[in-house]
Structures are given as C-alpha cells and as structure tokens.
C-alpha cells in the first residue's frame, strides 16, 4: 500500500511539472500549445538514449530539457504568426510528427518495441533506484520548477507575457518584440516538459511511442483548464485531484483495462462541466477563448 501511494505521488510530481509548464505557455502567454507531449516525448527519448549509452544521468537530464527547448524554439519560428485554433492545429501536427518519427526511426528508438532497461538515476554516486529516493528527486525538481515559474510570472517579464496574451498588437505598439517573448515562453515550457519526460523515462524504465501519443495531452490540458488559466495554485490542486480521482475505481474491483478508459471519460466529463458552468476554471484569471 505504501509503495502504491509513493507511486501516485511520483506521478503527481511528474504531472505537476508538465501541467505547470503548459500553464506558462497557455495560461500566461496565451499560446494554444497542444504540442507539449511532443516535448515530453523528446525529453524522455533523449534522456533514455543518453543513459543507455553510458552518459551520466545529470548530463542526460539537462540535455533532455535543452534539446526539447531547442525543438520549442524551432516550433516557435514557423508558428509565430499563428493564433488560437490555428496554433493549436499546428502544434497538434508537431506532436504527430514527433510520434511518427519515434515510431518509424527504428534504428534509433527501436520503434514500437520501445526502449527497455532505462537505468534508474544516479547523481554523484547517490542512487535514486528506490521509489522513495525517486520521490525525493521528483519533489525537488517539481519544487524548483514551481519557484522558477513563480519567479517568471511575478517579474516584469511575466507581465509582458500576460500583456501578449491579452492583446498582442497593443504589446507590439508599446515597442515589445512579441516574437521573442512568445519564443522564450515556448522554449522554457518545452525545456520543462523535456525534464519531466526524462524523469518519466527513468522512473518507468521503459518507453515506447504509445506513451506519448496525441491523446496524452488530454489529462494535462484538463489540469490546466480545470485549475484555471493563469493560476499556478489552480494547476497544482487540479493536478492532484485529477491524478487521484480515478484511483478509487481500482478498489471497487475494476480491472486496469477499464480504469484507463474510465479515466479519460471522467476527465472529459469534468472538463465539459467546467467549460459550461465555470469557464475560468476554479482559480482562473482569464477565460479560455
């Protein structure tokens, strides 16, 4: 039972990093970024491939973030002038491209067979192979990510992000380069998704393309929207609730094959109710347009 709770808290930690970083690009910058899972996937594969080739975990972990961030920069260039639904579609397409590449670049990713035997992290001789040690690692990273994002949004730069979200033209007319501002936001968001991917890969120790399909964005989006746009507090509460909510189904006696789809149905129903009756989410500052 204890191991089960530790597992849940580790999942909450990884989801928190993913959801808070998505909140930065969607809630604070207004970028309809549905490509977050692609950055998560890139981070997971980079970290897995590096450590499987005997590169130390710390290097792999940081590289996962940097390479995901570089892909964020790459994506920000052609999508710079896109907004709303169009940006959402372009980022969905990006997720699909990354998914297809990971599925078909067999010589690198082993395609659908996935990458087994990803080593548990070890930093300067300190092993994080036990779940309790991994929980400590995830908690430290999640707390650092929280304070990093808090630092961004509370700074004058955070106000520029919000101004860009509220009215990009007015921000530009005040002399701000919104292309640079949006790119920075997407790069940071992608970097953080990349390190979340690294943690996931080293926790589960096996990854395959199905772990990063388009559908995986749904729970993360639910966490951001239900918690409320431009609210870190809301994101944290929604993440904890949404990860824990489907768990009682296991104790009622449903098998894992039912719990998985039921989870998606529960998320979809909650999202529908929230969008209809509380469009700002529980703690949101702005409405989803």
């Amino acid at each position: 039972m204890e191991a089960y709770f530790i597992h849940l808290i580790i999942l909450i930690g990884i989801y928190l990093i993913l959801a808070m970083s998505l909140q930065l690009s969607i809630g604070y910058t207004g970028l309809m970024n549905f490509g977050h899972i692609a950055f998560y996937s890139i981070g997971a594969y980079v970290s897995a491939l590096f450590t499987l080739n005997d590169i130390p975990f710390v290097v792999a972990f940081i590289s996962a973030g940097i390479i995901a961030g570089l892909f964020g920069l790459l994506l920000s260039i052609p999508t710079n002038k896109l907004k709303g639904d169009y940006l959402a579609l372009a980022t969905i397409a990006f997720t699909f491209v990354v998914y297809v590449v990971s599925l078909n670049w067999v010589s690198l990713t082993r395609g659908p067979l996935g990458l087994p035997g990803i080593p548990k992290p070890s930093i300067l001789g300190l092993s994080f192979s036990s779940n309790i040690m991994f929980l400590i690692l995830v908690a430290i990273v999640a707390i650092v990510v929280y304070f990093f994002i808090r630092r961004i949004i509370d700074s004058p730069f955070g106000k520029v992000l919000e101004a860009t979200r509220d009215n990009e033209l007015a921000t530009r007319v005040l002399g701000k380069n919104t292309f640079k501002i949006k790119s920075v936001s997407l790069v940071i968001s992608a970097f953080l998704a990349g390190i979340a991917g690294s943690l996931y890969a080293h926790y589960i120790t096996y990854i395959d393309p199905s772990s990063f399909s388009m559908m995986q964005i749904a729970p993360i989006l639910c966490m951001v929207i239900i918690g409320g746009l431009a609210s870190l507090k809301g994101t944290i509460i929604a993440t904890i609730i949404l990860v824990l909510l489907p768990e009682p189904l296991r104790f009622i006696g449903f098998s894992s094959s039912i719990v998985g789809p039921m989870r998606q149905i529960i998320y979809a129903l909650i999202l529908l109710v929230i969008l209809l009756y509380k469009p700002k989410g529980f703690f949101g500052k702005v409405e989803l347009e």
Partner: protein
Amino acid sequence: MLKIKNLTKNFGGVKAVKSCDFDIKENTITALIGPNGSGKSTIFNLISGVLVPDSGKIIFDGVDISCFSPENISNVGISRLFQKSQLFDNLTVRENLLLSLDNEDTKFWKNIFGRNKINKKKEDLVSEMLTSIEMNYFASRLGRELSFGQKRLVEIARTILNPHKFLILDEPVAGVNPKLRRKISDILIDLKKKGETILIVEHDMNFIFKLADDVIVLDEGAVIARGSPEKIKESKKVLEAYLGN
C-alpha cells in the same frame, strides 16, 4: 518630423489611400479629418506599422520607416492611441502603465535575476500620471473592470508614458461623456503647451478646431485641403466632401 510621400494602400479593388502626400512639423498639433472611409485610420495603421504600404514612403526623423514593424516604429519614437480599446484587460491599471515605460521587461535573464526592479523613478512616473488623469483610486483595478471612459483615459496615459517624439491619437474623445471630453481636452492642451508633436484623428470638429494648429482633410484616400482651422472651416472643397455635391 514626419513626411508621407506618395503613399498608397489598396484592399483588393478598394483604394483606401491614394498617392497621399503631407508632412508634419515639429511642435505642432495636426488634425487629420475627413468623412467616414476617407482613409484616416488606414494612414494611422500605415504610420504605426500595423499595415505595410503598397507604395510610397513614410519618413520619420530622416529614416524610412515604411516597412518597419509596430515595435520598431514605437522604438523610433512614435506612440499610438487606437480608436478601439486596446487595454490589457487582465492587468491592473498600474501594470498597464508600467508596461509602457521601457523595454527592460522583455529581457528574460535580467528579470529572472531581479536586475529589473520597479524602481522609485518608475513608480513616481506612473503615480504622477495617475494623479494627472485622476485615476489614483483605480490603480489596482483590472483593465476589464473599468468603464469605457476610464479605459480611454488609461490608454491615453499609456500612450503618453510610452517614450516618444511623436504622438498619433485615433479619436481620443469618441464615445466619451462631456465631462471626460473636457478632461481629455485639458490633457491634450497641456501636451501642446509642452511642445509635443501630435497627429490626431477626430470627428468632433469643435474639439479639433480648438486644439489643432494645422488641419489636413482627406477624401477617398487623398489630401483635398490643408491649412489653419479657420481656413478649413471656410473651404468649399471640405464642405463638399462632407455634405456631397
């Protein structure tokens, strides 16, 4: 200060601005007037970089800014007020004004390492502006919580605070009540006394004739008359443009 040379802008088959030529002298208030659809807002959009001209040039302080982006145009010293509200609705009045002071807030690392603090000088500038527009009480209100007139005042304040050499104001008193209109008029008269260079579009002729040193009249995208307010009042061409033949 500003020279418009042979400026043309078409939207499909519609010629919004046709070979337009005029210049604006330093320390003057120039009004751009004309009937609806005469191309006033298009010219403003071209000057502020929201639109790119099909042909012609816009020269500001000796620099061709015809193809500059809105942010580069702002950074060479042109500050614009829009006709429709462009306030940041989810930021407070104070934050709206602070954003206009400089571009240090766009420097990521500087902000992350706390090297771009809101110092006393910036606070004083915002505070003085809020006092002058009598909006101190609303400093912590969100943009979306303000009335139409209050939004207009904050936007005018933001446009003035944005570092500039030249102000372009698109219908600053459109839709506001008479009391507020007087307040905005006082703000603009004050700017005139300070020697600001302003180009203003407005439909309220009494307001314009009281304020402007020079009036340019547009019709169907071209300049049809130019002169002092007194001269424009008497112009037969202008009457025809407004009332038809």
